[in-house]
């Protein structure tokens, strides 16, 4: 058999952050208690009407722009009609004819290499209710009904599970950077459908496409793709490729397999038509420009900048851009002209260690970039030792004080050469016999002199400078 390549496309659903739902005034917020965040329209009571949440439209347009998609001239919605117990109206309000974005292209990083990803479209829609199935009953929770959802559809442009997952991680970061979603898979805020087919390496036509529905974690996406490629490849090897059917399967986390749901032949006709209760809305150029300005510099661009212009390692740069708040902190440091590498060292070791341990946000840290700057400068000047700097780091955070509050006469390091020379001269004059011993070859008593200096200065002598002077004097 010829070498096979996999062709993968993704549909990524991401819940958006907003005060109220996308077409109703109910709160958009996750709750353990069922049916508390609901308005009459979420349960499709007769006579209720949808009202579009402008913030959700704005966020959707921003995402469309970050994906370099084309935005439509008019904003309007369509109805997707089908019956399902989690769909109270019997239709979902979505966008089929004029999505907020079409024909996009971005680059993402996979194993330090850039690959292009082609976006078919991105559209704004409403989420369905959630169902809980029990032994002989099912419960419907309408909290999620009407929650704003962005659905992003890629072209079949990935060739491995790694690429697909890298894209999802890239997008999760974009959503978080733009602050349009928490994009937390654990809260079910991201859900994916995956299309997988295989083909001969030199073939021009795609193989039979299998769709895997509702994969709710990135790990699941990875494993489902790997499993499905294997399954299809094996059938092909055995000469049974005709058994690969255009169908919808679901990912079964427990068994680690995909299970057939329905054939594409049974595909539902959604009978799309334009939602008549939401008037067409012209998207002005001015509004788009305003929104574009609100989009922050995204992670990949920052990372490349840090590596190229600040000489950071790919490893460190990756740590810095993982979270926008951290990256913003770092950039604030750069603005304050802190040396990039010092800032990086402090952030990646002390600061991240501390906030992770205490489950804090970097924005809550009392050690602001300005204070960090003081700390680094005092260390560089030699006012404090690096060990002292670490102590002060904790004290500043815990006692909420400034750096200078911890640098008193008592603990300032003696880094003045003249002052230190005087002290050393005095010590040496009191230790003539030891000097002789040293000069006779007992060089290991050098540390004895250092110890004396430290003892005399109560540890405040700059150790490097002390050694330097002693070496000079004892020559």
């Amino acid at each position, binding site marked *: 058999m010829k070498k096979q390549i996999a062709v993968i496309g993704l549909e990524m659903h991401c819940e958006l952050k907003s005060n109220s739902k996308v077409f109703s005034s109910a709160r958009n917020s996750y709750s353990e208690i069922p049916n508390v965040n609901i308005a009459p329209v979420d349960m499709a009571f007769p006579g209720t009407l949808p009202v579009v949440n402008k913030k959700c439209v704005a966020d959707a347009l921003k995402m469309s722009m970050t994906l370099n998609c084309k935005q439509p001239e008019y904003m309007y919605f369509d109805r997707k*009609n089908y019956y399902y117990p989690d769909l109270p109206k*019997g239709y979902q309000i979505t966008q089929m004819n004029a999505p907020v974005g079409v024909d996009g292209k971005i680059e993402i990083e996979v194993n330090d290499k850039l690959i292009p990803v082609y976006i078919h479209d991105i559209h704004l829609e409403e989420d369905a209710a959630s169902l809980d199935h029990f032994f002989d009953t099912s419960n419907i929770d309408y909290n999620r009904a009407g929650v704003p959802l962005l659905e992003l559809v890629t072209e079949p442009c990935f060739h491995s599970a790694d690429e697909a997952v890298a894209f999802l991680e890239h997008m999760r970061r974009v959503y978080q950077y733009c602050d349009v979603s928490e994009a937390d898979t654990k809260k079910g805020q991201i859900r994916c459908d995956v299309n997988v087919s295989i083909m001969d390496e030199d073939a021009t036509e795609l193989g039979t496409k299998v769709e895997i529905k509702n994969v709710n974690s990135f790990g699941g996406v990875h494993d489902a793709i790997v499993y499905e490629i294997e399954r299809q490849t094996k059938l092909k090897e055995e000469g049974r490729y005709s058994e690969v059917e255009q169908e919808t399967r679901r990912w079964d986390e427990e068994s680690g397999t995909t299970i057939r749901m329905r054939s594409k032949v049974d595909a539902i006709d959604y009978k799309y038509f334009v939602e008549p209760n939401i008037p067409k809305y012209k998207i002005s150029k001015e509004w788009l420009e305003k929104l574009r300005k609100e989009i922050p510099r995204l992670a990949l661009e920052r990372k490349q900048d840090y590596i190229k212009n600040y000489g950071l390692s790919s490893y460190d740069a990756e740590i810095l851009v993982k979270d926008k708040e951290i990256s913003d902190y770092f950039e604030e440091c750069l603005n304050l002209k802190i040396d990039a590498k010092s800032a990086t060292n402090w952030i990646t070791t002390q600061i991240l260690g501390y906030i992770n341990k205490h489950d804090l946000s970097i924005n809550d840290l009392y050690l602001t970039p300005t204070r960090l700057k003081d700390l680094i400068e005092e260390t560089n000047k030699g006012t404090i030792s690096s060990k002292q700097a670490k102590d002060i780091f904790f004290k500043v955070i815990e006692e909420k004080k400034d750096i200078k509050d911890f640098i008193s006469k008592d603990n300032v390091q003696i880094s003045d050469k003249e002052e230190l020379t005087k002290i050393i001269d005095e010590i040496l004059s009191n230790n003539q016999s030891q000097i002789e011993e040293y000069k006779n070859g007992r060089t290991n008593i050098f540390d004895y002199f250092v110890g004396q200096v430290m003892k005399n200065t109560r540890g405040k002598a700059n150790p490097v400078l002390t050694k330097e002077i002693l070496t000079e004097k004892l020559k």
Partner: protein
Amino acid sequence: MDKSITELHELLKNGKITSEELVKESLEKSKEVEEKYNAFVTILDDTKGKNVTDSLVSGIPFGVKDNYSTKDVLSTGSSNTLKNYVPFYTATVVQKLFDAGAIIVNKTALDEFGMGGTGTTCHTGPVLNPWDKTRMCAGSSSGSACAIASGVYPFALGSDTGDSIRKPAAYCGIVGYKPTYGMLSRYGLFPFASSLDHCGVLTRSVEDAAIVSDIMKGKDEHDMTSWDSSNIHLQESLTGDIKGKKLFYIKEICNLANYPNASEELKMHLQNFDKTLDLLKEAGAEVEEISIDQRLLNAIASVYVVISCAEATSNMSNLTGIIFGPRSDKQNIFEMMKDHRTKGFSPLIKRRFVIGSYVLQKENQERYFKNAARVRRLIVDKMKELFKEYDALILPVSSGPAKKFDEDKDVIDDNTNVLEEHLQIGNFGGFPSITIPNGFVNDLPVGINITGNCYDDENVLNIAYTLEGMMPYKGQIAKERE
């Protein structure tokens, strides 16, 4: 209760009658009308009077079509699918009337969810015409029209997707008005076809229609298609002066020569229409005959069927009996939905759902649904072009007086098709449109309709008001034929 709103307001203000007395009379009348004509779904027996304020409708009873959501009051849409549904919120326009002090005394019967023009598909049985019990009121605002014609109260709410206010008004000899699309919020109106649905009112005078609409109109944050009409003052615009106004009628609809097999009733109806045109001229208006491509007119009925059925199938997909309405006892959820819908809907509605699904199917959508939308646009564009030159369109309503129950079952007769269906133009374009009575044919009332351009409600009402003043039918109450 056979008086106008302003007359009642005057009596209430002067203390000649009390709100309590009006409510009592209205309830008694409701029971009588229910017994005789089957006009109501619910009569609110324990209704109390209200304070009389400066608002013209304060302390005055009124009726609400049963497809409006009314908090704590059964709201069925005249369908078995909602036969036990008691909403927990009130429709915006109803609430505005409550806030103005008006008092709801009953919910009126309609063709199931407004989908019908006969008043025969209500889950409570057919509504009979108060002028002749062997005849229909037309629909779907059948109960409201019947109640107004019977003098139960001075105004009742209706809804109009094709002609559901304006045709029953003609058949019952009263006034039926639907304002420009979006002037009245649809929040709380059970949807039939959202792009065609209008709220409106049935009264016995143009002024009453203006008064009630003035109260109900306004932008509603719950309805994105509603708009700010604070610069429109309907009642104030009723001057009775239409000198220099230009009206047109459509030759293909009004010319008797187009109906080779015309019935006597149709002949009399069209002759009567001509007399009304003379009145307009007498009042100083110009009336011109214009011609419209017959093919465009012939398409009206099918465009309506395709669009309204398509939107209806989708709009009524929420009726599954799971959240509200009688829940099926089947075990599987899909079986429950199927059972609820199979038992709940009348055969007429099911037929329309089949049509709606068919025209929306992927393989049919272009040919039917999208083409219907295109023809709708052509018809609306044609009307808008005419409204640039003319102030309003005037046409006879239907092909004569109310039909007998055994005569018409919503079957389209090719002969008089356009005459029966032309009011749907008003829904295609969202145009303000009003029907007023203009006489009798065989002792049964007939009506004319005046339709104008969007947002030109003041003008349309003033023309109707002027004409009404020149005829003796204002405020008439049905006298049952023996």
